[in-house]
Protein backbone atom coordinates (compact mmCIF):
# COMPACT_ATOMS: atom_id res chain seq x y z
CA UNK A 1 0.00 0.00 0.00
CA UNK A 2 1.51 3.32 -1.07
CA UNK A 3 1.13 6.59 0.83
CA UNK A 4 -1.08 7.86 -1.96
CA UNK A 5 -3.55 5.00 -1.64
CA UNK A 6 -3.92 5.09 2.16
CA UNK A 7 -6.90 7.43 2.04
CA UNK A 8 -8.82 4.91 -0.12
CA UNK A 9 -8.47 2.25 2.56
CA UNK A 10 -9.37 4.83 5.21
CA UNK A 11 -12.51 5.66 3.20
CA UNK A 12 -13.33 1.94 2.84
CA UNK A 13 -12.96 1.38 6.57
CA UNK A 14 -14.83 4.61 7.37
CA UNK A 15 -17.88 3.54 5.38
CA UNK A 16 -17.79 0.06 6.93
CA UNK A 17 -17.88 1.67 10.39
CA UNK A 18 -20.72 3.96 9.24
CA UNK A 19 -22.73 0.94 8.04
CA UNK A 20 -22.14 -0.86 11.33
CA UNK A 21 -23.05 2.28 13.31
CA UNK A 22 -26.18 2.86 11.21
CA UNK A 23 -27.54 -0.52 12.28
CA UNK A 24 -26.06 -1.15 15.72
CA UNK A 25 -24.98 2.16 17.28
CA UNK A 26 -27.79 4.54 16.37
CA UNK A 27 -30.96 3.94 18.38
CA UNK A 28 -34.34 3.19 16.82
CA UNK A 29 -36.20 6.35 15.83
CA UNK A 30 -39.54 7.09 17.47
CA UNK A 31 -42.65 7.43 15.33
CA UNK A 32 -41.46 5.18 12.49
CA UNK A 33 -42.53 1.65 11.60
CA UNK A 34 -39.94 -0.95 12.60
CA UNK A 35 -36.39 0.03 11.75
CA UNK A 36 -37.34 1.90 8.57
CA UNK A 37 -35.87 5.21 9.80
CA UNK A 38 -32.35 3.77 9.56
CA UNK A 39 -32.52 4.28 5.81
CA UNK A 40 -31.97 7.99 6.57
CA UNK A 41 -28.24 7.24 7.04
CA UNK A 42 -28.01 6.29 3.36
CA UNK A 43 -30.89 8.19 1.76
CA UNK A 44 -29.90 11.69 2.96
CA UNK A 45 -26.18 11.38 2.03
CA UNK A 46 -27.17 10.07 -1.42
CA UNK A 47 -29.46 13.07 -1.95
CA UNK A 48 -26.70 15.39 -0.65
CA UNK A 49 -24.13 13.90 -3.04
CA UNK A 50 -26.58 14.30 -5.93
CA UNK A 51 -26.92 18.02 -5.11
CA UNK A 52 -23.14 18.33 -4.74
CA UNK A 53 -22.62 16.59 -8.11
CA UNK A 54 -25.04 18.96 -9.83
CA UNK A 55 -23.14 21.91 -8.29
CA UNK A 56 -19.86 20.49 -9.68
CA UNK A 57 -21.62 20.02 -13.04
CA UNK A 58 -22.58 23.72 -13.00
CA UNK A 59 -19.06 24.90 -12.10
CA UNK A 60 -17.42 22.72 -14.80
CA UNK A 61 -20.00 23.88 -17.36
CA UNK A 62 -19.32 27.55 -16.60
CA UNK A 63 -15.57 26.85 -16.83
CA UNK A 64 -16.13 25.22 -20.21
CA UNK A 65 -18.09 28.23 -21.47
CA UNK A 66 -15.22 30.50 -20.43
CA UNK A 67 -12.22 28.46 -21.58
CA UNK A 68 -13.56 25.85 -24.07
CA UNK A 69 -11.33 23.18 -22.52
CA UNK A 70 -12.69 19.71 -23.49
CA UNK A 71 -11.59 18.40 -20.09
CA UNK A 72 -14.07 20.78 -18.41
CA UNK A 73 -16.79 19.28 -20.60
CA UNK A 74 -15.69 15.82 -19.44
CA UNK A 75 -15.74 17.04 -15.83
CA UNK A 76 -19.28 18.37 -16.28
CA UNK A 77 -20.50 15.13 -17.88
CA UNK A 78 -18.90 13.03 -15.12
CA UNK A 79 -20.49 15.13 -12.39
CA UNK A 80 -23.91 14.97 -14.06
CA UNK A 81 -23.59 11.18 -14.48
CA UNK A 82 -22.75 10.72 -10.80
CA UNK A 83 -25.50 13.15 -9.82
CA UNK A 84 -27.98 11.09 -11.80
CA UNK A 85 -26.77 7.81 -10.24
CA UNK A 86 -27.00 9.19 -6.70
CA UNK A 87 -30.44 10.72 -7.45
CA UNK A 88 -31.65 7.29 -8.56
CA UNK A 89 -30.21 5.74 -5.39
CA UNK A 90 -31.93 8.41 -3.25
CA UNK A 91 -35.20 7.73 -5.09
CA UNK A 92 -34.91 3.96 -4.61
CA UNK A 93 -34.09 4.23 -0.89
CA UNK A 94 -36.91 6.77 -0.51
CA UNK A 95 -39.32 4.36 -2.23
CA UNK A 96 -38.30 1.52 0.08
CA UNK A 97 -39.01 3.77 3.06
CA UNK A 98 -42.34 4.80 1.50
CA UNK A 99 -43.35 1.14 1.06
CA UNK A 100 -42.77 0.43 4.75
CA UNK A 101 -44.24 3.67 6.12
CA UNK A 102 -47.02 4.53 3.72
CA UNK A 103 -47.78 1.15 2.12
CA UNK A 104 -46.76 1.96 -1.45
CA UNK A 105 -43.49 2.48 -3.28
CA UNK A 106 -44.87 5.56 -5.02
CA UNK A 107 -47.40 7.98 -3.49
CA UNK A 108 -47.17 11.03 -5.78
CA UNK A 109 -45.84 12.96 -2.81
CA UNK A 110 -44.35 16.40 -3.74
CA UNK A 111 -40.86 15.11 -2.83
CA UNK A 112 -41.26 12.05 -5.05
CA UNK A 113 -42.59 14.11 -7.94
CA UNK A 114 -39.89 16.78 -7.63
CA UNK A 115 -37.04 14.21 -7.62
CA UNK A 116 -38.67 12.46 -10.62
CA UNK A 117 -38.73 15.78 -12.51
CA UNK A 118 -35.10 16.42 -11.56
CA UNK A 119 -34.16 12.96 -12.84
CA UNK A 120 -35.89 13.68 -16.15
CA UNK A 121 -34.14 17.07 -16.46
CA UNK A 122 -30.69 15.52 -15.99
CA UNK A 123 -31.56 12.48 -18.13
CA UNK A 124 -32.36 15.00 -20.90
CA UNK A 125 -28.81 16.39 -20.46
CA UNK A 126 -27.48 13.02 -21.64
CA UNK A 127 -30.09 12.74 -24.38
CA UNK A 128 -28.82 16.11 -25.63
CA UNK A 129 -25.20 14.94 -25.49
CA UNK A 130 -26.04 11.81 -27.47
CA UNK A 131 -27.99 13.79 -30.06
CA UNK A 132 -25.15 16.14 -31.08
CA UNK A 133 -22.29 14.42 -32.95
CA UNK A 134 -19.97 17.43 -33.20
CA UNK A 135 -17.84 17.54 -30.03
CA UNK A 136 -17.47 21.29 -29.65
CA UNK A 137 -21.11 21.98 -30.38
CA UNK A 138 -22.14 19.19 -28.01
CA UNK A 139 -19.98 20.61 -25.23
CA UNK A 140 -21.29 24.17 -25.72
CA UNK A 141 -24.93 23.12 -25.84
CA UNK A 142 -24.50 20.80 -22.84
CA UNK A 143 -22.84 23.57 -20.82
CA UNK A 144 -25.67 26.00 -21.59
CA UNK A 145 -28.27 23.33 -20.79
CA UNK A 146 -26.48 22.46 -17.52
CA UNK A 147 -26.76 26.06 -16.33
CA UNK A 148 -30.51 26.08 -17.08
CA UNK A 149 -30.95 22.65 -15.45
CA UNK A 150 -29.19 23.82 -12.31
CA UNK A 151 -31.59 26.76 -11.93
CA UNK A 152 -34.42 24.26 -11.41
CA UNK A 153 -32.49 22.14 -8.89
CA UNK A 154 -32.77 24.31 -5.72
CA UNK A 155 -36.43 24.93 -6.54
CA UNK A 156 -37.21 21.21 -6.95
CA UNK A 157 -35.06 19.96 -4.06
CA UNK A 158 -35.48 22.67 -1.44
CA UNK A 159 -38.51 24.85 -2.28
CA UNK A 160 -41.31 22.65 -3.71
CA UNK A 161 -41.26 20.07 -0.88
CA UNK A 162 -41.54 22.88 1.67
CA UNK A 163 -44.44 24.71 0.02
CA UNK A 164 -46.79 21.75 -0.23
CA UNK A 165 -48.02 19.40 2.46
CA UNK A 166 -45.93 16.25 2.29
CA UNK A 167 -45.84 12.76 3.75
CA UNK A 168 -42.05 13.08 3.89
CA UNK A 169 -40.61 13.40 7.42
CA UNK A 170 -39.26 16.81 8.47
CA UNK A 171 -35.79 17.59 7.21
CA UNK A 172 -32.94 17.23 9.73
CA UNK A 173 -32.94 20.98 10.34
CA UNK A 174 -36.67 21.66 10.27
CA UNK A 175 -38.62 24.74 9.16
CA UNK A 176 -38.29 26.22 12.67
CA UNK A 177 -34.52 26.12 12.24
CA UNK A 178 -33.95 23.60 15.04
CA UNK A 179 -32.20 20.25 14.93
CA UNK A 180 -34.64 17.36 15.36
CA UNK A 181 -32.44 14.31 15.75
CA UNK A 182 -31.10 12.18 18.57
CA UNK A 183 -27.36 12.88 19.05
CA UNK A 184 -26.08 9.37 18.16
CA UNK A 185 -28.24 9.33 15.03
CA UNK A 186 -26.86 12.75 14.13
CA UNK A 187 -23.27 11.52 14.59
CA UNK A 188 -23.88 8.55 12.27
CA UNK A 189 -25.59 10.76 9.70
CA UNK A 190 -22.67 13.21 9.69
CA UNK A 191 -20.21 10.30 9.38
CA UNK A 192 -22.20 8.95 6.46
CA UNK A 193 -22.30 12.38 4.78
CA UNK A 194 -18.51 12.60 5.03
CA UNK A 195 -18.07 9.02 3.71
CA UNK A 196 -20.43 9.45 0.75
CA UNK A 197 -18.81 12.80 -0.12
CA UNK A 198 -15.42 11.03 -0.14
CA UNK A 199 -16.85 8.28 -2.33
CA UNK A 200 -18.22 10.86 -4.76
CA UNK A 201 -14.88 12.63 -5.10
CA UNK A 202 -13.06 9.31 -5.58
CA UNK A 203 -15.43 8.26 -8.38
CA UNK A 204 -15.35 11.74 -9.88
CA UNK A 205 -11.54 11.89 -9.90
CA UNK A 206 -11.29 8.42 -11.44
CA UNK A 207 -13.62 9.30 -14.29
CA UNK A 208 -11.90 12.64 -14.96
CA UNK A 209 -8.48 10.93 -15.03
CA UNK A 210 -9.87 8.40 -17.49
CA UNK A 211 -11.26 11.23 -19.65
CA UNK A 212 -7.84 12.95 -19.56
CA UNK A 213 -6.13 9.79 -20.84
CA UNK A 214 -8.73 9.41 -23.62
CA UNK A 215 -8.33 13.06 -24.64
CA UNK A 216 -4.53 12.79 -24.74
CA UNK A 217 -4.79 9.62 -26.84
CA UNK A 218 -7.21 11.25 -29.29
CA UNK A 219 -5.02 14.34 -29.62
CA UNK A 220 -2.03 12.11 -30.38
CA UNK A 221 -3.99 10.20 -33.03
CA UNK A 222 -5.18 13.43 -34.64
CA UNK A 223 -1.70 15.02 -34.82
Amino acid at each position, binding site marked *: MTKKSVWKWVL*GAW*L*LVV*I*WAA*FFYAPSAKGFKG*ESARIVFFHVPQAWVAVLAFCVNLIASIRYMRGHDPLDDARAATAARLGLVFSVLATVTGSLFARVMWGSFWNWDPREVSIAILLLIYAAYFALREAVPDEERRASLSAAYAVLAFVTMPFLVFVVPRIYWSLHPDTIINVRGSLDMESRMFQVLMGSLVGFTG*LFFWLYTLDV*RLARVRLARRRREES
Partner: protein
Amino acid sequence: MPAAESLVWVAAVTIVIWAGVFVYCLGLDRRVRNLEDGE
Protein backbone atom coordinates in the same frame (compact mmCIF):
# COMPACT_ATOMS: atom_id res chain seq x y z
CA MET B 1 -29.08 -1.95 20.59
CA PRO B 2 -31.66 -3.47 18.26
CA ALA B 3 -31.74 -7.24 18.54
CA ALA B 4 -33.87 -7.91 15.47
CA GLU B 5 -32.31 -10.71 13.44
CA SER B 6 -33.51 -9.14 10.22
CA LEU B 7 -31.40 -6.07 11.00
CA VAL B 8 -28.26 -8.22 11.02
CA TRP B 9 -29.16 -9.51 7.56
CA VAL B 10 -29.82 -6.04 6.17
CA ALA B 11 -26.51 -4.84 7.65
CA ALA B 12 -24.69 -7.85 6.15
CA VAL B 13 -26.18 -7.23 2.69
CA THR B 14 -25.30 -3.52 2.91
CA ILE B 15 -21.71 -4.39 3.86
CA VAL B 16 -21.45 -6.85 0.94
CA ILE B 17 -22.77 -4.17 -1.47
CA TRP B 18 -20.28 -1.63 -0.10
CA ALA B 19 -17.43 -4.13 -0.32
CA GLY B 20 -18.38 -4.72 -3.98
CA VAL B 21 -18.40 -1.00 -4.77
CA PHE B 22 -15.06 -0.58 -2.96
CA VAL B 23 -13.36 -3.44 -4.80
CA TYR B 24 -14.74 -2.12 -8.12
CA CYS B 25 -13.33 1.35 -7.36
CA LEU B 26 -9.94 -0.11 -6.44
CA GLY B 27 -9.88 -2.07 -9.71
CA LEU B 28 -10.86 0.99 -11.71
CA ASP B 29 -8.19 3.00 -9.91
CA ARG B 30 -5.53 0.45 -10.89
CA ARG B 31 -6.77 0.39 -14.48
CA VAL B 32 -6.63 4.19 -14.75
CA ARG B 33 -3.13 4.24 -13.23
CA ASN B 34 -1.94 1.65 -15.77
CA LEU B 35 -3.40 3.73 -18.60
CA GLU B 36 -1.73 6.88 -17.25
CA ASP B 37 1.61 5.04 -16.96
CA GLY B 38 1.23 3.82 -20.54
CA GLU B 39 0.77 7.36 -21.86
